[in-house]
């Protein structure tokens, strides 16, 4: 279904950094997950990817960063372009060299390494010297003081939230141009969630880093993003300026929980299984 919000995209001036054109992704040769997803991420913007569990957000990000191989998935149709260059055949490492880094869902810290070593491996691709790396490390510690306190602990023995910070920090260590963030807020205390989004905005405005952000915390995501896509069942069902999306009645009802204007209490929700779907 096409929504009028489409029109709003037309006015976008900046050139798109990342262009995903109608990709299809299949896992294990038989499970078709993405059924023609297209999206644009303009340079220097924050784009949010929204949608329920199993909509295909993670899969989209994996397709972009080319991490599908390890999951036995493959892109079977469509193309992905970074600054006009096709990148489906590039290795993840080459993408990192081009400045695209992904923060994986579910943390994936290096269990046996200390937090600090985890962060330092993040700078593996950097060639700008020890001093510059140390500087970034300091910056990450500033963002997440908790990490500094736990720097010598083995990552496996830190708490869930600490690992999440570690994963985000590790990606930032690469000094990326574009970050693919998969559910960054998961498992973080509210203050830290604010902090993370603060960092996103900060990097975005001050260093021009582009973000593609898969997030369940819709309200937060739409607050910080410029543009949003809503995925359902492997298809983009709605897209538009973040503000416009936040105003949309359906989005309000299903993603922001404000059907009747105010936020409803969790205690008041009367029944389940009343999910409306754009594509049923």
């Amino acid at each position, binding site marked *: 279904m096409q929504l009028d919000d489409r029109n709003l995209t037309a006015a976008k001036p900046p050139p798109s950094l990342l262009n995903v054109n109608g990709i299809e992704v299949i896992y294990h040769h038989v499970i078709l997950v993405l059924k023609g997803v297209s999206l644009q991420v303009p340079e220097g913007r924050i784009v949010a990817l929204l949608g329920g569990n199993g909509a295909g957000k993670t899969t989209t990000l994996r397709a972009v960063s080319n991490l599908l191989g390890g999951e036995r998935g493959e892109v079977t149709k469509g193309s992905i372009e970074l600054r006009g260059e096709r990148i489906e055949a590039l290795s993840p490492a080459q993408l990192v060299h081009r400045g695209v880094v992904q923060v994986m869902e579910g943390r994936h810290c290096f269990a046996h390494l200390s937090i600090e070593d985890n962060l330092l491996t993040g700078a593996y691709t950097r060639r700008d010297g020890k001093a510059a790396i140390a500087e970034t490390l300091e910056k990450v510690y500033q963002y997440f003081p908790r990490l500094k306190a736990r720097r010598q602990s083995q990552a496996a023995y830190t708490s869930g939230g600490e690992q999440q910070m570690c994963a985000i920090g590790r990606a930032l260590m690469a000094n990326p141009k574009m970050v693919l963030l998969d559910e960054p807020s998961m*498992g973080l205390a509210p203050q830290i969630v604010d902090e993370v989004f603060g960092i996103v905005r900060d990097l975005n405005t001050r260093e021009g880093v582009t973000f593609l952000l898969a997030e369940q915390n819709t309200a937060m995501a739409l607050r910080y993003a410029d543009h949003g896509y809503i995925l359902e069942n492997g298809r983009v069902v709605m897209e538009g300026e973040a503000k416009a999306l936040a105003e949309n009645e359906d989005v309000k009802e299903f993603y922001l929980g404000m059907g009747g204007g105010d936020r409803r209490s*969790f205690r008041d929700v009367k029944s389940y299984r009343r999910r409306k779907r754009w594509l049923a």
Partner: protein
Amino acid sequence: MTVAVVSRMPSPDAEQPRSGSASAADRVPSAAPARRSAGDVILDVQNVSLAFGGVKALTDISFDVREHEVRAIIGPNGAGKSSLLNCINGVYTPQQGTIRLRGQTFRHMNPRQVAEMGVARTFQNLALFKGMSVLDNLMTGRNLKMKANLFQQALRFGAAEREEIAHREVVERIIDFLEIQPWRKTPVGRLPYGLQKRVDLGRALAMEPQLLLLDEPMAGMNLEEKQDMCRFILDVNDEFGTTLVLIEHDMGVVMDISDRVVVLDYGRKIGDGPPDEVRGNEDVIRAYLGTAG
């Protein structure tokens, strides 16, 4: 047998008006506590301390959980919330303190004993059996209740088969309820993160616990899904009187559905009481909630 109990599992039918104690008045968020008479203390944690080498994960924590209540634990990252749950169900052994569970006092808890006493839990970092199907994952939750011995199972006649089917029925109801029917036979390793969380919950529910410990069950869900989950948790709580201990970072959820809240900070307890009271507590605001509240 067990099946009878579970047939009272919340009906999956959406439109049917909800019965029982959940009257409209109960759902006014501001009038949170005392929805029903608070029961006896089911779990009593006394002066528990836990350290890993130099890291003090928990220092002298005491709190109790009463029957039928929804007890939330909140606190910043690394405060020791998950560690506390791990102590309760015997994964970690605290260096100091005692834990009293339904009248019995433990120093060392053995996970099996704890499970036998009707305690189930979900995990923060998914701890599902990745190679097994959704169905099998939930069925393991019922293993404690299965009685057939090895030989009966190998031959699979009569009792063993009947038992298997009876438990399957229970599990199917949970599957229906969690809306994961299409994935019944999919290995859980292939499910998206959010669904895996649901399966994790389903496995704990399949144990029909009296005390259910939930470690961030709603991380990675969107609002709509969280609403469902809350509804569900409340239903379980209402209908079976299952006592719930819930760790959650979403303050909306915590404030709305919990009866009492414990706040941890760097291994210490800095607050304990009904949501409203905790929300107003200076220490809690400073340590956790931030100015936003």
